[in-house]
Structure formats: structure tokens, C-alpha cells
């Protein structure tokens, strides 16, 4: 047995009575607001901001409810509740997003207060998943488990969550505000494409501190976040972020929605002036009120204590035997399993990207199955990645084969994490009211074209990211190959970019050439891949080949027939 009580050791913040009272009161407040809207007491104009504050959008087919998954960490109990809501109030499935949240697409307004009440039963809500406020703070999906982790980002993401929830100054910012935090050597949270990206680290004295990057973001005007401070001491963490938000709140543009994000402010003020403003505000704020006391950090950290790992040898003989006996399992281990900091354990990525599937969608049955597997193999805890996959972070190596078999049976054993089939795609025009083109069919066609797992493995690391509009929810700008859907006189076309990089060496991709039809785009991706395979040197990644030989060979291969 891994554990006694499923979920008892899950690395989530556990609500206290004050938290529960607050969320409960908010649900009842919204219940009254819905009743007033349905009775006609509130107009749609009056009601819309209220429903958005509770994560409720109106999309193409119905209302869409976006539920917060703080820093992407869930207990099995919470996932079971999401599965139950999907079955009872939606159409039996949910969609995991690039902000580590979950969206339901077919929600009824009149059911929403009941749904929020059910979420509150498992310490969940939909607050600040919409609106011009601080959104869900994202982090590394391997947090607390990764071999290369220096600082546990969950602790600080939770501190940020508590600090920013209904913060009176930051409820009506110029625009939405997105923060990502990472505490590992490798950036798995794409921190430099966020309004604020935080790298948690330790100095030589063993103290925790933070490097701050500000002004990143994709959308209409993509920018890579710029470094504003190399080291902020732990006790100043809240003060420094508050200083950034205050400067943004004061100077950010409210007259033009397209220029309202902090990236535009940093760009227009210039990094030097922006940094000076922040430092001046920081100097004013520093003091007892904003000091992050070690006791508070320790108390939050207590919630994220490591689960009771068994003492195990670093390598599992059972795992090696299973790998030798089963090539498909060996492939899955090679591709979807990462090293764990605890000897004898591993981190398993559950791909929500079967060949020809809809990226990020999971049925209620699949959610329940994964919840059961989390109980059985990972202390009742799981994570959502910004790449729209699920993660079991603490699996004994001895258990990996049994886990994989269970996943395979449910269609969740695809070995493509980080490969060409692991496509990030926004819901696109099939669901989203903002989209100009469909994203999902293209993702399905590309993943079907590259379904062969051996071919995927031969291609190696390859991030394809698809957005159905310029808002870039599919992060297309930082895809190794990015695809943006555009509407041309009622017909869907797709613009390809290459060279995007979501890691700390962040780069915005370059447009390859004129946009293409859906069918042409699939062929174009194949042409790009084939050019890479033909030109790469031994062990060379796609991005490195692209840097070495330039865009021209790829462009020529794509547009040769045109």
C-alpha cells in the first residue's frame, strides 16, 4: 500500500473554516445574482461582469464554466467531483486548459450555483478564472517531485493565491494578469510568456529568493518577459509583486484593450523606467505589513510536505524486467516517465493526446479512472500540465507497468509526451466565441498523420501549438512549430511559424510564409519535419537545426508545390 487514506498526503492547500465560509458565502451570493438575472431584476449588461467573476462565460453552444485548479494540483476526490459534474451537468467530459484549469462547455446558467456549491464541497471554486484580475497562478507540473527542483513553487503559488484572491486593489486591473512560477533548473512552466514570471532559487547561503521577469505574453503583440530583478529575498516576495502590480495598475492603459496588458506598459515605458518605478514603489511598501514572515511560509509549506515515500532502491528490477519484455511499455517509460527526486519513484505523464484525439479532453469515466490510479499509485494526488496532460507525480517504479496497463485499457497510455503528437490546441471555433478558425480538427489531423510512435520517437522533441485566433490560448507563438488559425472571407486558413521556444531561452516563432488551407497545413508540417530529419546532425534538436540552417530550406519545402 502506498498510503492509508487516499489523498491525505496530496500536495494541496487544505481549506480551513475561514476559507470554506468565504467560498460558501460567495456561492450563495452568486445564487442570488442568478435569480435576480432570471427574474429580470438584473439586465445582461449588469449581470455579465458578475457571472464572469465566477468563471462563467457564454460561448458558442452554451455557457462555459472555467474552474480553477490552483497551480494545477488536484486530489483524487476533487477529480472525481469534476467527473461527476461533467456527467450530471455537462455532456460527460471536460477540457483541461493551458492555464492548468478545467472547462466545461455545456453548462446551464440556472445550474451554475449548484455546480459551484458542489465544487465548494471539495474546496474548489471558479473565482478569478475570468475578468481583469490575477488569474490562476501556474507552475511546473512536476513540482515537489522533480529531480532538478531547487524550490517548491507550490508554496509560493499558494501564497500568491491567498494574497491576490479578491485583493481590493487588483480586482479591476487594466486587463487580466497571469503569473507563472518555477523552482527548477528546467522551465516547464513557460515563465517568460507571462505577465510576471518568477524563478524561485536558492543562493549559496541556502536562502530562498526569486528572479522576476515582467511583461511577457502572447496574443496580438507577443513579447518575451524581461528580467527586472535577479534576486528578491523571500521576505520581500509579496512586497515586490505588489509593487509591480501597483505600477501596472497606475500606468497600465485602460483606454485601449489591445494595449492594456503589462507587456505594452513595459515596452512603452522602457525596462529601465519601469524597473525604476517598481523599485520606488517597492521601497515604499517594504516593511512589517508586507513582510512575508518565515512562520507563514513554514505553515504553507506544511501543506506541501512530501508524502511518506518508502525507502526504495534507486532502480527497480521489476521495471527493468517489464521494459525488456514489453517494447510498447518501454517506449512509454522512455517518453512519458521522468526522474523523481525520491529513490525508487518516478513521475508519469498521462497523455490526453491520443492519435486523432481532442487535446486536453477527458471523459468523466477517464477522470474517475485517473482518480482511482492516483489513489492507488500516487498518494491520491495528480496534476494538470500547461500542455493539457495529467501527471501522477509520485509513482513507485515497481508500479509503473501496472499503471501503464490500466492507462492503456482506457486509451490513456499514448507515449507522446513532448513529441509531435503532444499538440497543444485551444478549443478554437468548435467552441470558442472569440475564435476565427478551428484548432481541434487540425490537431487531430496532424496527430493522426504522425500516429506511428516509432516515427514520433525518431523525430524527437517537437512542440506543435495551435491557436484558433490571435489571442493565442494555444501558445502558437512559442511552438517549435506554431499554427495560427485565420479567417479569410469566411474560409479557414492557417499561418505557420517556426522557431518558437517556451523554455527560459524563450523565443517567438517567425512566420514561414503565406497561410495555407487545413489540408495544406498538414502536408506543410510533414514537409518541415522531413526537412529537419534530412538535415539534422546526430542528436540535433529541431530548434538547433533551424538555427543552424535557417528558415529557407523549410520554407522551400513547404511552398515548393505552390
Amino acid at each position, binding site marked *: 500500500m502506498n498510503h492509508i487514506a487516499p489523498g491525505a498526503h496530496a500536495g494541496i492547500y487544505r481549506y480551513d473554516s475561514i476559507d470554506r465560509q468565504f467560498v460558501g458565502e460567495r456561492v450563495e451570493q452568486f445564487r442570488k445574482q442568478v435569480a435576480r*438575472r*432570471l*427574474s*429580470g431584476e438584473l*439586465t*445582461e449588461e449588469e449581470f455579465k461582469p458578475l457571472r464572469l467573476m465566477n468563471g462563467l462565460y*457564454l*460561448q*458558442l*453552444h*452554451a*455557457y462555459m464554466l472555467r474552474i480553477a485548479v490552483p497551480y494545477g494540483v488536484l486530489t483524487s476526490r476533487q477529480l472525481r467531483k469534476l467527473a461527476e459534474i461533467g456527467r450530471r451537468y455537462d*455532456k460527460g467530459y471536460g477540457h483541461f486548459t493551458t492555464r492548468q484549469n478545467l472547462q466545461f462547455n*455545456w*453548462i*446551464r*446558467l*440556472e445550474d451554475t450555483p449548484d455546480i459551484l456549491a458542489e465544487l465548494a464541497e471539495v474546496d474548489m471554486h471558479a473565482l478569478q478564472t475570468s475578468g481583469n484580475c490575477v488569474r490562476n497562478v501556474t507552475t511546473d507540473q512536476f513540482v515537489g517531485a522533480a529531480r532538478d527542483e531547487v524550490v517548491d513553487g507550490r508554496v509560493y503559488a499558494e501564497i500568491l493565491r491567498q494574497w491576490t484572491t479578491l485583493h481590493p486593489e487588483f480586482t479591476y486591473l487594466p486587463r487580466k494578469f497571469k503569473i507563472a512560477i518555477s523552482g527548477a533548473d528546467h522551465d516547464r512552466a513557460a515563465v517568460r510568456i507571462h505577465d510576471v514570471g518568477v524563478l524561485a532559487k536558492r543562493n549559496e547561503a541556502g536562502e530562498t529568493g526569486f528572479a522576476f521577469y515582467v511583461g511577457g505574453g502572447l496574443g496580438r503583440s507577443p513579447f518575451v518577459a524581461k528580467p527586472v530583478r535577479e534576486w528578491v529575498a523571500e521576505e520581500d516576495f509579496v512586497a515586490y509583486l505588489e509593487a509591480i502590480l501597483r505600477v501596472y495598475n497606475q500606468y497600465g492603459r485602460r483606454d485601449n484593450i489591445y494595449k492594456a496588458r503589462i507587456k505594452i506598459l513595459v515596452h512603452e515605458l522602457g525596462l529601465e523606467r519601469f524597473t525604476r518605478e517598481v523599485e520606488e514603489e517597492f521601497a515604499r511598501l517594504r516593511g512589517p505589513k508586507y513582510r512575508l514572515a518565515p512562520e507563514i511560509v513554514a505553515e504553507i509549506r506544511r501543506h506541501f510536505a512530501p508524502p511518506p515515500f518508502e525507502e526504495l532502491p534507486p532502480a527497480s528490477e521489476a521495471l527493468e524486467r517489464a521494459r525488456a519484455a514489453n517494447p510498447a511499455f518501454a517506449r512509454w517509460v522512455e517518453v512519458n516517465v521522468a526522474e523523481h527526486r525520491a529513490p525508487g519513484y518516478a513521475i508519469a505523464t498521462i497523455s490526453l493526446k491520443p492519435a486523432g484525439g*481532442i487535446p486536453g479532453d477527458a471523459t468523466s469515466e477517464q477522470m474517475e479512472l485517473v482518480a482511482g490510479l492516483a489513489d492507488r499509485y500516487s498518494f491520491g494526488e495528480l496534476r494538470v500540465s500547461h500542455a493539457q496532460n495529467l501527471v501522477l507525480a509520485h509513482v513507485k517504479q515497481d508500479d509503473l507497468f501496472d499503471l501503464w496497463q490500466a492507462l492503456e485499457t482506457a486509451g490513456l497510455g499514448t507515449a507522446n509526451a513532448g513529441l509531435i503528437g503532444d499538440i497543444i490546441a485551444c478549443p478554437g*471555433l*468548435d*467552441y470558442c466565441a472569440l475564435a476565427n*478558425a*478551428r484548432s*481541434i*480538427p487540425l490537431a*487531430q489531423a496532424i496527430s493522426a498523420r504522425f500516429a506511428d510512435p516509432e516515427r514520433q520517437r525518431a523525430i524527437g522533441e517537437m512542440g506543435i501549438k495551435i491557436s484558433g485566433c490571435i489571442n493565442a490560448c494555444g501558445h502558437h507563438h512559442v511552438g517549435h512549430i506554431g499554427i495560427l488559425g485565420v*479567417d479569410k472571407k*469566411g474560409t*479557414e486558413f492557417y499561418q505557420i511559424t517556426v522557431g518558437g521556444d517556451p523554455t527560459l531561452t524563450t523565443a517567438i516563432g517567425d512566420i514561414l510564409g503565406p497561410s495555407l488551407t487545413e489540408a495544406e497545413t498538414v502536408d506543410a508540417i510533414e514537409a518541415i519535419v522531413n526537412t529537419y530529419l534530412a538535415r539534422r546532425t546526430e542528436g540535433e534538436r529541431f530548434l538547433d537545426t533551424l538555427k543552424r540552417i535557417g528558415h529557407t530550406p523549410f520554407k522551400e519545402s513547404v511552398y515548393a508545390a505552390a
Partner: protein
Amino acid sequence: MPKQDETLKAITANRLRDGTVVFLGPDGRWVEALDEAALFDEAAAEPALAAAKAKAEREQFGVDIYAFDVAVGADGRLPVKMRERIRALGPTVRTDLGKQAAA
């Protein structure tokens, strides 16, 4: 009867209570199927839209009300833009969902 191969306008909304896509019917009632929707020529669409908005607000029935182009041909009615085709039928990637599922 509309002429063949003609582009006319229909009026659509999302039903307030559940968000379901609805269309303005011939008698001023809201209907769920595009085939049952009233079709208007350019001149008639604008006053019909204004009246529909006023009525929906009065009755707390629909939100996000707008007119869109529908091509009417031998094979029936087809929204000119993909967005409205998807609204009228359901997601193209899940034909088991939306109005198309019941067809």
C-alpha cells in the same frame, strides 16, 4: 418562399437560462432549429433584429442577439460563415453533441 441560391438573414441568440442557441421564428417565437427560423431580406432584417432585442430583453429570454447570413439553395439552408454553421449544428469534432446529435 425564398428564391433558390439566395443569401438571406436569420436572427439568433443564446437562451438566457441554459445558453442554448435559438433562432427567431416566423411568428416571433424563438425556435431551436435553423430550418424553422424566419428568414429576412436585407431591408427587413434590421427592424426585425431591433424588435427581437427589445422583446428578448422584456421577456428575459435571449442574450447576444444578432443577425447572420444564410445561403438558401436546393439543399436547404446553410449559414454562410463557419461560426454560425457550428452554432446551428454543434462542434464539428463531436457530431454526437449539439443540435446535430438529435438530427
